[in-house]
């Protein structure tokens, strides 16, 4: 290839030299032929220069385009990196929001002192339980557990001791109940035990264990033994009853237990 190229170039060069020599030879005695040749020679030279200029320009454009391409690639890669980073950070913000929502939900449905379901969640569960009871015709049992003379505990040992007592009662109640039972803090020193798919007969075992177990479970509060008892009112849901009705009956029994001297569980 190179060799052929070289031959052509040499022939080319030889032709150019010959024409230049001819033009020089006839410079003093020009003829039509030599003048035409001189014009052709000049035209040839101009065309050659033009061709070279076009080649140079074309090369320049090509390298410019290549540089632009490279620039685009660099910019594209930078944008891509940024996009990936934005997506990553955004995902983490979303995750944070989901977790905060969960925490918020937990906070709105649970009592911070005992960790038990609060009144709001208990009401929701009671509503659901009434629906289920009427659908499946299986009653549930509701028990209200109230700490006796709780005010005295607070007054004698201080509020921190009172809080500790509530935590221990909560823990003990929960430990005595089944996985699907609900134990919650109804308010103050009042706890609620909701036993789905239960009758008074089947529930009294659990309720009895709670009532009898709490005094035995003598509370060690800050190094001092605090002995407490509880009063309990227990009611079984009756067909057609709203949860408020069942709760009211349990509450009336609790009141009766208090009046009869406390430390007892009454059922109906």
């Amino acid at each position: 290839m190179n060799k052929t190229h070289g031959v052509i170039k040499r022939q080319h060069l030889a032709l150019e030299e010959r024409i230049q020599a001819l033009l020089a030879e006839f410079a003093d005695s020009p003829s039509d032929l030599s003048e035409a040749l001189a014009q052709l020679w000049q035209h040839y030279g101009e065309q050659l220069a033009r061709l070279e200029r076009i080649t140079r320009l074309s090369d320049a454009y090509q390298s410019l385009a290549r540089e632009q391409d490279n620039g685009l690639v660099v910019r594209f890669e930078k944008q891509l990196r940024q996009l990936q980073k934005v997506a990553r950070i955004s995902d983490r913000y979303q995750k944070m929001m989901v977790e905060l929502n969960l925490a918020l939900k937990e906070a709105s449905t649970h009592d911070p002192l005992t960790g038990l379901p609060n009144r709001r969640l208990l009401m929701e569960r009671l509503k659901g339980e009434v629906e289920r009871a009427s659908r499946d015709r299986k009653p549930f049992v509701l028990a209200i557990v109230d700490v006796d003379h709780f005010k005295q505990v607070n007054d004698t040992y201080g509020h921190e001791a009172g809080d500790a007592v509530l935590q221990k009662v909560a823990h003990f109640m929960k430990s005595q109940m089944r996985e699907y039972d609900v134990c919650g803090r109804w308010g103050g020193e009042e706890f609620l035990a909701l036993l789905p798919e239960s009758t008074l007969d089947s529930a009294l075992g659990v309720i009895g264990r709670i009532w009898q177990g709490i005094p035995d479970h003598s509370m060690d509060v800050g190094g001092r033994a605090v002995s407490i008892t509880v009063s309990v009112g227990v009611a079984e849901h009756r067909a057609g009853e709203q949860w408020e009705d069942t709760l009211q009956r349990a509450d009336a029994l609790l009141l009766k237990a208090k009046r009869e001297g406390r430390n007892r569980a009454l059922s109906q």
Partner: protein
Amino acid sequence: MQGDSYPENAFELFGEIIQWVEDYLAHSADSLRVELQLLYLNTSSIKAMMDIFDLLEDAHVKGCAVSVKWHYDKRNERLAELAEEFKEDCTFPFLIASHE
């Protein structure tokens, strides 16, 4: 800057800020200190913040004394992790400070 940011069009909100930072750094500035206490950012706000940090980075490379202090509530460590993500590609001083 402080607070949550989740506008529908973050560019409307951040466009002016980005412009200001750009102008300030291009003309008068030999230093710029940015104090942030950001909570939730939506995706386009994240992009806008990254654009601002890019401007700061460019200025820093050119010798301008830029710095960022990102404050966060100690109770939410996740905000610190997110600040770390933003900090990742920045070579200028970027302090992440917790508050009680």
